């Protein structure tokens, strides 16, 4: 019973609420008990808000009785701990903010609250959305429910782990170089990085202003679409927030993909790709072809310079943290401190050249997206990394398939497309034209419905 409730989709939960078969309070109690039982081994939650969750659930129950039919009413969620929550500790996964209680709410948090969700708590993040916690850190890192000796990906690590373990039905993530899609990939769930400017960054701790994105994480594409809906739309508190009209994100789900053009970027994304990942990806393309999509190869030559995006990220992160790095360096995690300090060593000219390279990648990507509707790649070149490897300071920043779409700001979805022989999830990445989340979700949904990867559960 607990598993059935914990792994219900958002639509299934809503339908059962309205038939009076289940109540938000009942579901919340099931999840709180599940968190108590499973989270000590997973460390997904950094702060549990049980009283608040039950109060939210009771309020939702009352609204359901009055016939309120909003799809997120009574749906249990949690926030990555870089999203400010008014009156609730927000740590950023850092000793620097270990006891910080903000007096503001992030726009995303407020919008989900206004949509009637139930807040279960705050989910551990890599420190300041960048630094995996090393042994001895104030906050232990989340563990991967598929194999606790492997990382769940980062930086939205708690979000990925909590969703995979059936502890929440939706979570926020943030994505500067893959921090929504990486945990989605490693934990076998779905993550959507919307277009830059689509979902507000207001009230969310910054990593890198020009690369940061906020967005939803869930277990199915439809759940992601439902969770995106209230997040999308202009926010005057975020200067990068767009005025572009907001689509109905669930409307295109279920429409077939016949004739849609899917571009497989053959350069960059297949360098160093694990054979299992490549095989799963090619099988996913075969599935899309069977569904009627026109799958074709494309090239974006400038992507070879993708790694220069780190100069932008490091310089912007240093600018954000400069004062605290100088005044309280000891409160930053080992390794992360030095990575942030590296941003002080990027020259102005190098930052500008990296932005010029970025312009070229954006231009070439836009050109390719005139000829195809979405782009497809493996999300991550390899399955989840073991902690033993990730905790080597020299491990650094391995080449990744996700930053290209932080550079371009394109809407990008990660969803399960298989498993490694060792039982770790593999993932498909789909990117689209600016503000065309609807098409990306439509293709992802068609693929998901033709396969069963999203129905597998980790051995927790």
């Amino acid at each position: 019973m607990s598993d059935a409730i914990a792994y219900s989709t958002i639509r299934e939960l809503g339908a059962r609420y309205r038939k009076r078969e289940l109540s938000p309070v009942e579901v919340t109690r099931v999840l709180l008990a599940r968190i108590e039982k499973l989270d000590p081994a997973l460390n997904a939650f950094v702060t549990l808000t049980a009283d608040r969750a039950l109060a939210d659930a009771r309020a939702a129950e009352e609204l359901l009785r009055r016939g309120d039919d909003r799809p997120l009413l009574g749906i249990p969620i949690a926030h990555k701990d870089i999203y400010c929550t008014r009156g609730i500790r927000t740590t950023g996964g850092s000793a620097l903010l270990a006891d910080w209680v903000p007096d503001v709410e992030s726009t995303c948090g407020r919008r989900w609250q206004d949509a009637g969700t139930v807040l279960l708590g705050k989910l551990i993040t890599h420190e300041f959305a960048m630094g995996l916690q090393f042994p001895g850190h104030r906050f232990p890192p989340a563990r991967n429910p598929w194999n606790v000796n492997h990382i769940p990906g980062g930086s939205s690590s708690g979000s990925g782990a909590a969703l995979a373990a059936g502890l929440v039905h939706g979570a926020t993530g943030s994505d500067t170089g893959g921090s929504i899609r990486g945990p989605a990939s490693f934990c076998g769930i779905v993550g959507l990085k919307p277009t830059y400017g689509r979902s507000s960054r207001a009230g969310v701790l910054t990593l890198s202003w020009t690369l940061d994105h906020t967005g939803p994480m869930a277990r199915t594409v439809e759940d992601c679409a439902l969770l995106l809906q209230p997040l999308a739309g202009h926010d005057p508190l975020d200067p990068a927030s767009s005025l572009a009209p907001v689509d109905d994100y669930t409307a295109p789900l279920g429409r077939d993909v016949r004739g849609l053009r899917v571009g497989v970027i053959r350069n960059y994304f297949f360098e160093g790709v694990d054979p299992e990942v490549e095989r799963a990806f090619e099988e996913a393309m075969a599935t899309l072809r069977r569904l009627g999509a026109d799958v074709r190869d494309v090239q974006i030559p400038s992507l070879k310079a993708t790694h220069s995006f780190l100069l932008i990220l490091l310089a912007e992160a240093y600018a954000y943290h400069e004062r605290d790095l100088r005044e309280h360096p000891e409160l930053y995690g080992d390794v992360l401190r030095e990575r942030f300090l590296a941003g002080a060593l990027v020259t102005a000219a190098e930052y500008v050249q990296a932005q010029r390279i970025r312009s070229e990648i954006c231009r070439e990507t836009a050109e390719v997206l005139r000829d195809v509707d979405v782009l497809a790649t493996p999300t991550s070149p390899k399955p989840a990394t073991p902690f033993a490897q990730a905790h080597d300071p020299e491990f650094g920043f391995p080449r990744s398939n996700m930053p290209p779409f932080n550079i371009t700001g394109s809407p990008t979805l990660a969803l399960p497309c298989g498993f490694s022989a060792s039982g770790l999830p593999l993932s498909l990445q789909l990117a689209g034209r600016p503000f065309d989340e609807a098409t990306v979700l439509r293709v992802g949904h068609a693929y998901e419905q033709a396969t069963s990867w999203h129905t597998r559960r980790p051995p927790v």
Partner: protein
Amino acid sequence: MGEPLELTLEELRERIKAAGITIADHRLGMVRKLLSDALVQVRALDSRTIKTVEPAVRFQGGRHE
């Protein structure tokens, strides 16, 4: 160009001094690799010839014979 693609330890130390920050000796190798990897493409770039979106008049400086 003539600039080496790799960031040397000496250059890293010069940058640290200029920035007025401190990085522990045992982390210098890690920082050097992090920056070196990020800089490779920028250093390989001839800023006079890159095709970019913003307008930029191109010229050939130096002596013309």
